[in-house]
């Protein structure tokens, strides 16, 4: 018995499975959010109707934040975060800009800035 692994607290995994948070949905309504899309909270937050995770997202997105960073910050799988974001978008509580959309691979000036930045690392 004492040889069997014991898990406590965070090691035991979430008390609520991630997909229970989003009621079993695996795809957000509307367009899928790119991993590097930038999310920003907009408008007034109606605290009553939102789940705790969605409130956490809105708090984290007061300053612009990427979808991938949100997933890391909330320690939730990306797919779960996307569904939660879809709900927030439907409620008009976030704005989303997808920097990699539009086909252009970004402009020359930015790339030069990145090269110089990498050199300076």
């Amino acid at each position, binding site marked *: 018995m004492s040889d069997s692994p014991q898990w406590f607290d965070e090691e035991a995994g979430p008390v609520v499975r*991630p*997909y229970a948070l989003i009621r079993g949905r*695996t795809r957000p309504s509307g367009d*899928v959010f*790119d*991993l*590097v*899309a*930038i999310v920003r909270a907009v408008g007034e937050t109606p605290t009553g109707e939102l789940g705790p995770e969605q409130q956490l997202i809105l708090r984290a997105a007061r300053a*612009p934040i*990427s979808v*991938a*960073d949100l*997933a*890391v910050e909330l*320690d*939730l*799988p*990306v*797919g*779960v975060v996307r569904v939660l974001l879809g709900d927030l978008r439907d409620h008009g509580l976030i704005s989303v*800009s*997808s*920097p*990699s*959309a*539009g*086909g252009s*691979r*970004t*402009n*020359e*000036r*930015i*790339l*030069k*800035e*990145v*090269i110089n*930045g*990498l*050199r300076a*690392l």
Partner: protein
Amino acid sequence: MDSVLSEDPVALKILIAGGFGVGKTTLVGSISEIKPLRTEEVLSDRGVGVDDLDGVEAKTTTTVAMDFGRITIREGLVVYLFGTPGQERFWFMWDELSYGALGAVVIADTRRLTDCFPSVDYFEQRGTPFVVAVNCFEGADRHSVDDVRIALDLDDDVPVMLCDVRRRTSAKEVMITLVEHSLRTLTSAN
């Protein structure tokens, strides 16, 4: 007024590809802070029999960890690194990952050069700028860069370089070479 002057942060995406165990995680860790990013994807038929699905027949997604790092160039300009899933059954994740990507690093191990064929094919077909970084494992033959170029049948403009993914300076050189290559691709297209 240049639109870049607006407050919108710029987030760029670079993919790190290559066969299983070739050094993707090490490369991301050498140059950036690794963050634990969990993603989940639809189980394809290939997962059946590998993942134990007894009693959860309705389960169609599984959670996989992804190599993920970020390099902050300055406030409002961040480069994100994403390791592409090494297993074949996660291929379908690549389309989303590569969408709008600035470019890709394909890490090659000369002892198992064929492992990087699928990545090279993929980025050639997608038109994603990429470089081939030959990871010099201890004890591995130091094939010349030209031999690797011939073996992979690469276009002349695709940079091929030797690297040691464990070393930060080497990882840095790889990233710089890639962004310079992306810049050349961009300017020659205009």
